[in-house]
């Protein structure tokens, strides 16, 4: 059966005493006809690509195709030991920007769920997995959890910036990562649900305002915030903090906020910082001026 709500998958998991990833894997296997092993293998391939993009982006400055950005992940990584935010948050945030830097340089990434938000899930899972000494297999399973949460958000709201703003891309990625971080840390399915709700609420209303329409400014830094927030949301949920509003209602609200946002604030580069004086000047410089 397909799970259309977080409530359904959380209740099924808890009734079976299973993880969300176990239930999701079983469901996916039934729906696609692929065995659980085959699904895990396919996801392990995606995980390899994620790991490569992280290590590329933190080991050197990679300029974007437009020249507008580059090296954000690398620079923050240099400050992991001395920064104010603490090692876990700093590592995750550096890695998130590292993947976004690779994306902006025409490198190979995994859309997760989109290219614009591709840094958040890899960075959170790799960082949390590393801190907890988890195996690659555990992290691949956690990716299954992120995917099923993403699927439920896609059914009930949207994952596209053009439809729902940045909250739909980076917000969803952050929520998906938060659920998986809880699972990796040994939290319950219900705590994963609260982490999704808390992360989505933290980023609700965030607009999509890319300067010159490119996936760079402010997207790369927003990937860092999405990653940091996912970890904080997971910690809150595991401390027993609950979302007053049930997670499925939060997801629906995010979708409705997305619909209510004016088109200027949904990937059209007509509002927000894209419409700032400097944003417009950069746009003129980067776009074909005769258009």
């Amino acid at each position, binding site marked *: 059966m397909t799970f259309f709500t977080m409530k359904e998958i959380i209740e099924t998991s808890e009734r079976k005493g299973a993880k969300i990833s176990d239930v999701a894997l079983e469901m996916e296997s039934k729906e*696609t006809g692929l065995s659980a092993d085959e699904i895990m293998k396919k996801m392990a391939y995606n995980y390899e690509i994620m790991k490569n993009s992280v290590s590329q982006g933190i080991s050197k400055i990679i300029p974007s195709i437009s020249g507008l950005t580059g090296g954000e992940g690398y620079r923050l990584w240099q400050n992991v030991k001395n920064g104010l935010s603490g090692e876990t948050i700093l590592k995750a945030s550096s890695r998130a920007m590292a993947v976004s830097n*690779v994306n902006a340089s025409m490198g190979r990434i995994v*859309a997760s769920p989109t290219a614009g938000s591709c840094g958040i899930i890899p960075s959170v899972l790799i960082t949390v997995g590393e801190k907890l000494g988890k195996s690659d297999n555990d992290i691949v399973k956690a990716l299954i959890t992120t995917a099923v949460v993403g699927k439920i958000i896609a059914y009930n709201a949207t994952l596209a910036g053009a439809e729902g703003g940045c909250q739909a891309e980076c917000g969803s990625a952050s929520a998906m990562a938060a659920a998986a971080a809880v699972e990796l840390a040994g939290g319950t399915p219900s705590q994963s649900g609260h982490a999704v709700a808390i992360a989505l609420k933290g980023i609700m209303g965030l607009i999509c305002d890319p300067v010159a329409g490119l996936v760079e400014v402010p997207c790369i830094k927003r990937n860092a915030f999405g990653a940091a927030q996912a970890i904080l949301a997971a910690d809150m949920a595991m401390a027993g903090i609950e979302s007053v509003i049930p997670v499925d209602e939060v997801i629906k609200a995010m979708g409705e906020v997305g619909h209510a946002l004016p088109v200027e604030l949904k990937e059209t580069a007509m509002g927000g910082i894209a419409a700032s004086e400097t944003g417009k000047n950069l746009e003129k410089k980067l776009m074909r001026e005769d258009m």
Partner: protein
Amino acid sequence: MNIFDIIGPVMIGPSSSHTAGAARLGKLARNIFGEEFFQADIILYNSFAKTGKGHGTDKAIVAGILGMEPDDENIKKAIEISREFGIEVNFSFEDLKREVHPNTARIKLYGKENTMTISGCSLGGGRVMIQDIDGFKTEFTGEFNTIISIQRDKPGIVAYVASYLAQSNINIAQMKLSRKSKGDMALMIIETDEIPPKSVKRDLESHEGIYKIVVATV
């Protein structure tokens, strides 16, 4: 939708619509033409024209017509690679505002004897739609195996093709027919579940009312 639509696809950044989708459009154009070519004239419209440079749309389309997939790390170098192959690539840019989808490209490929002009758009998430082949309006995504037939608009041809496919145990998923005018040339797009056999081109082209068959498999 399966979980790999959410965590995936693996692609070359930065944009699923402007990079991955552009590469898929190029690859589909290559498959539809199905012949060797030495020149490609590419027109980018609207958002593809305006923001295409920063998104590598030009490189991605060229990569696609060279046969690269959207996750090929050589996409970045596609224009240099096309030169190595001796393929001349010309770009132009147009703003048609609302007349076409924001992310539209028109690709004209020049082979030894034939040329073909293919227009399509990138719908988002890497999905694309071919909208025009040599002036025939069409709508197909390339997500299925596709048989394209350029034929005379006269009775019996659709039935002939359909019965040929039935005999080959090929199930038709979707089908669309368009023509320029009554009795003139027509274009038929057939999307199939199974991969059509290699012989389909030769067999169907032997019918006097069918001028050209193109098979683009997934």
